[in-house]
């Protein structure tokens, strides 16, 4: 049945957490009440990426974008927009104070500069309906590969496209596939790594939630090229919606004969098993992941013999990330030429020669627009942060951007013109990683941030090898000391030495990259470290133990009239003073929790 209007309600995890399913129900109820149910359809879509302003709804075919919806707003919205035909301005996106609201999705800066390949169906289809995926050209790439191309042809196309692993390492996918194809062996596996463990990153989840069939199709094409008939998707159990959609999608694909035997009437057979991970970060590492599928403890092993030769159950195994797989159908469909036209460098002779296609980033931190963005390779960090991200919140100054998740590095403000490219990012000590991008402003302390990231990797270290188990803990001890004012300049030397050792001698990439935040922060922000260890001060006031809180007596007495708020909030009873008179802080008692600073309405409390 055709409808005049479609309400595309976002059902990504972020929006669902903000009650988008209730909003959908409210719409359905309201539409029924107004007898519009046969004219207007409510569709749940995958994640739109603009999670900061969820729940999101897009009215199609006009492309009107509504944000921050509440259940109580729905009757008004139906009345105004759907009955009277007047889009409601107050639910639209407003780029800044005193600026007019932007009604259309494609005009919003956040979406304007994006280029969608892996996420091309986001917000446009119901991810739980295979028909909608097929309607958008889905599975035609598979049909093309199976009926018009040989496995070698497919391989060649992927190789020519210069696609590189989107999970972090940036290994040329075509080279990996080719090696795997050459290894003899009847049983061979392809694996989709959906064990996305980086804190704050949700690229893979979003792809599976908005377009699960793209991943399945990518795996099918890969399996055909590499002669595999068994696939695994290793997905973390903390992604219930993605897991559910993936299960439904494989079920539908099986029903449609797209998984199983004799696919598209050929001899090709392939099926996918879904394995759930239990949340260990290290299981995102390929060998640990395979160990986990086999039912052994999720610990990595040395990869001196590659997994394409000896992987899952000691058979040749090709593991790629969700985003990599999702790119494959588009490359087959539109050709390597089209793909290589996007991005940097030249990959015609050297597969490592450049970065092609697009990359999905999870943009978070102190930017105005946070969310998921897919951008062409070669775009500068500045463009992402200022054009798509809308700049820094509250007009503050940017200090650094950290890319690549907890194991990535800090890139200082002076390098923001750096293009997004595997090799460029690695050159400056950071990495593409799976696509985390955290923006920090002047209120963030790099020592504190480095400590935060290292705390994560240290806790997630499996503990198998000495450098990672002991080394990261010792590094954390040193950072901890620095942030509480017990650090020395020798500590910085030792920290650097330890970091280099952990990078050089750890068993797997977790330990091999865990010190990146420390190393890059030491490289680009050594001054800030020196202030911490020499003056025992934190310039950003983020390391609270180094702060000294004092009350400006004059301001307190004259402006605040000794309001007593700080005194009441102090858990240490460290604030003295009569009401209506100036207060002061007993430094001996103060534990530097910062509670007084937060409650003072008159900004009478100073931090030194």
């Amino acid at each position, binding site marked *: 049945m055709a409808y005049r209007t479609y309400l595309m309600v976002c059902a990504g995890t972020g929006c669902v957490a903000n009650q988008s399913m209730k909003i959908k129900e409210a719409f359905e109820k309201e539409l029924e009440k107004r007898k519009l149910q046969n004219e207007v359809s409510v569709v749940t879509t995958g994640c739109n990426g603009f999670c900061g302003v969820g729940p999101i709804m897009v009215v199609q075919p006009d492309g009107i974008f509504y944000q921050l919806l509440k259940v109580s707003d729905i009757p008004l919205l139906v009345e105004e927009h759907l009955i009277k035909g007047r889009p409601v301005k107050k639910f639209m996106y407003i780029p800044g104070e005193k600026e007019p609201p932007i009604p259309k999705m494609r005009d919003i800066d956040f979406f304007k500069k994006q280029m969608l390949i892996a996420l091309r169906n986001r917000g446009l289809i119901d991810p739980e309906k295979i028909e909608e995926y097929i309607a958008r050209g889905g599975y035609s790439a598979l049909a093309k590969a199976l009926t018009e191309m040989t496995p070698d042809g497919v391989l060649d196309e992927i190789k020519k496209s210069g696609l590189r692993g989107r999970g972090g390492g940036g290994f040329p996918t075509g080279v990996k596939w080719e090696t795997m194809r050459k290894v003899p062996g009847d049983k061979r596996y392809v694996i989709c790594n959906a064990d996305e463990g980086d804190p704050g990153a949700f690229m893979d989840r979003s792809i599976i939630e908005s377009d699960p069939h793209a991943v399945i199709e990518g795996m099918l094409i890969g399996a055909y090229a590499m002669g595999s008939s068994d696939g695994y998707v290793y997905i973390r159990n903390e992604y219930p919606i993605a897991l559910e959609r993936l299960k439904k999608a494989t079920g539908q694909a099986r029903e449609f004969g797209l998984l199983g035997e004799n696919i598209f009437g050929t001899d090709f057979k392939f099926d996918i098993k879904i394995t759930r991970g239990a949340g*260990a970060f*290290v299981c995102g590492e390929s060998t640990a992941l395979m160990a986990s599928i086999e039912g052994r*403890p999720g*610990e990595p*092993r*040395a990869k*001196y*013999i590659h997994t394409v030769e000896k992987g899952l159950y000691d058979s040749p195994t090709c593991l790629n990330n969700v985003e990599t797989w999702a790119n494959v159908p588009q490359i087959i469909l539109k050709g390597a030429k089209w793909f290589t036209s996007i991005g940097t460098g030249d990959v015609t002779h050297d597969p490592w020669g450049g970065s092609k296609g697009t990359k999905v980033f999870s943009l978070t931190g102190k930017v105005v627009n946070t969310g998921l963005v897919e951008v062409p390779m070669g775009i500068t960090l500045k463009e992402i942060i200022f054009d798509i991200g809308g700049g820094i919140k509250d007009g503050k100054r940017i200090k650094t951007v950290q890319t690549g998740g907890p194991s990535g590095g800090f890139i200082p403000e002076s390098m923001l013109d750096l293009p997004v490219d595997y090799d460029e990012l690695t050159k400056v000590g950071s990495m593409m990683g799976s696509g985390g991008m955290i923006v920090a402003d002047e209120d963030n302390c790099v020592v504190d941030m480095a400590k935060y990231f290292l705390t994560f990797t*240290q*806790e*997630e*270290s*499996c*503990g*198998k*090898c*000495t*450098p990672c*188990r*002991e*080394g*990261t*803990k*010792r590094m954390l*001890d*040193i950072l901890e000391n620095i942030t509480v004012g017990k650090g020395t300049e020798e500590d910085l030397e*030792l920290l650097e*030495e*330890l970091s280099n*050792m952990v990078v*050089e*001698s*750890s*068993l797997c990439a977790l330990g091999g990259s865990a010190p990146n935040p420390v190393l890059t922060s030491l490289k680009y922000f050594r001054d800030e470290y020196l202030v911490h260890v020499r003056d025992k001060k934190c310039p950003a006031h983020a390391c609270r133990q180094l702060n000294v809180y004092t009350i400006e007596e004059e301001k307190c007495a004259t402006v605040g009239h000794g309001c007593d708020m700080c005194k009441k909030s102090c858990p240490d009873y460290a604030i003295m003073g009569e009401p209506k008179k100036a207060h002061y802080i007993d430094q001996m008692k103060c534990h530097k929790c910062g509670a007084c600073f937060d409650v003072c309405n008159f900004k009478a409390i100073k931090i030194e």
Partner: protein
Amino acid sequence: MVTVNIDGKNVEVLEETSILKAAESAGIWIPTLCYSELFEPYGVCRLCTVEVIRGKRSRLVTSCNYPVREGLTVLTNSDKVKWIRKLIMELTYSRWPNVPVVKDMAAALGVSEPRFKSLEQDLAPDACILCGNCVNICRDVVKASVLSFEGIGIGRKVVLPYNEQSETCIVCGACAQVCPTGHIKIKSLEKERGALQDWYLGPKTAINIPTLQAVPRVPIIDEKSCIKMQTGGCGVCSTYCEPEAINYEAKDEEIEIEVGQILITTGYQTIDLKQMSQYGYGRLDDVYSSLEFEHMLNSTGPTGGTILCKDGSEPRAVGIVHCIGSRDENFHKYCSRVCCMYALKFAHLVKDRTPAEVYQFYIDMRAFGKGYEEFYKRLLDEGVNMIRGKVAEISEGYLNNGDKPYLNIKCEDTLIGKFREIPVDMVILCPAIEPQFDASNIKKIFSISQSPDKFFLERHPKLDPVSTMTDGVFIAGCAQGPKDIPDSVAQASAAAARILSLISLGEVAVDPIKAEVMDEYCSGCRMCNSLCPYSAISFQEEKKISYINDMLCKGCGTCVSACPASAIIGKGFTDKQILAELEGILSV
């Protein structure tokens, strides 16, 4: 074969060999803390890191699991390698400063004082250093997968699942064997699972030389604890045995030997002490049987001859209890003869090796042999306490709260007519000597007799003490009755002399009184076969009749009277002859 260059030396090794092995063959030492040849390299201590150069690329790899490739250049001692090893060692050393292997390795790598203090520092000298050897050997070699790692990161540790005794553990002790620090200890489960051996006092590997004085001095495999024989895994000993002398397929076999005479010296066993629960054997620590104590006294024994309680302390007092099961209405009425004297020997040795007080609990002292009484007198002078009376019970007691429990011996002192309770730290029980449990089988096989106490019966107690009622079968030693070593030797010599005298004669004189089967009358009913007390009658399959072995037949006449066809006659005692004799007598 591929050629690799290690520290400037060209080394030719098989493909797929690890760098570590290749270096070893070239005599280059690479430090490791987790490497073992028994399982796939785990590669976690990272000390074996070396620098490999292929073309222009140089990288650090662990040599234990990096396979050599043609044309590889390896540096095991470059500045970078030294720096990495030293720093890793600092980390390990700061965490486990007192573990000997770590200390030694730190010294070898030139680490004296680590620059950081580990918050997780473990000062125990037998701390677990997380090398994973135990987990790997249990999974890959024993194939029992009993041990596992728990926790991640710095909180990682080796555990039994749920910290409970595992059902799949076969107590092979392999994990303790490969543990470089001695963190894993094998707890004796003797009480729960029964003794592994009769006098098991300490852990033993499944393949061992039973005692240092064993003849021949070769190792034996204990089938019950050998992993190879239990699970099919392991096989480690055969990989180590260069002459390939280990044979897991060897089985016990039966050998037939034809002999003329047989000397039975099957010996004795000691009474099962567990049936006398009042003495606490198997229930209380430090209650030993005399054989176990003898094993402890042995300089090649588990304690090297030192007398120690189970907790490793020296006993303050030792009680030796005589006549356990012998001279006892409930068990054996006879005297075991040897206990008094070995008990005195024990007392002497305890006095000699420890300052402990010794108490002997006896019924009567039987110091009958040559020089024995003098020894007894000497011991009285040495200050051994002799208490005449039977022990009623041995129980655990506590002097003070928290103190080590002592063993309380309750007994009657018949010389002063009082009940006494004597605290000791160790008790040695003198179990009765009794016939082997399968003595009746031996009896049946050789057609000999047993006395009421089940020892084998000699032909005549005074005039023929080594032969039996069956010709050519002799007995000696404790199979015949309890006796000490001199007596056993004397009796055995006598038996040997008897046997030799028959051999030197070359022929055997037999009694002419025999039974004989008259072939033409025998119907082959085989009734006589089972009746013959000397197993002299056998059935001849080809003729389908019974046949009497003249050498075995004693002419008792049982078969003659039993044969339903009257086919067996006693030679010289046929009915006809007896009747003729009767007639002759009566005609006078």
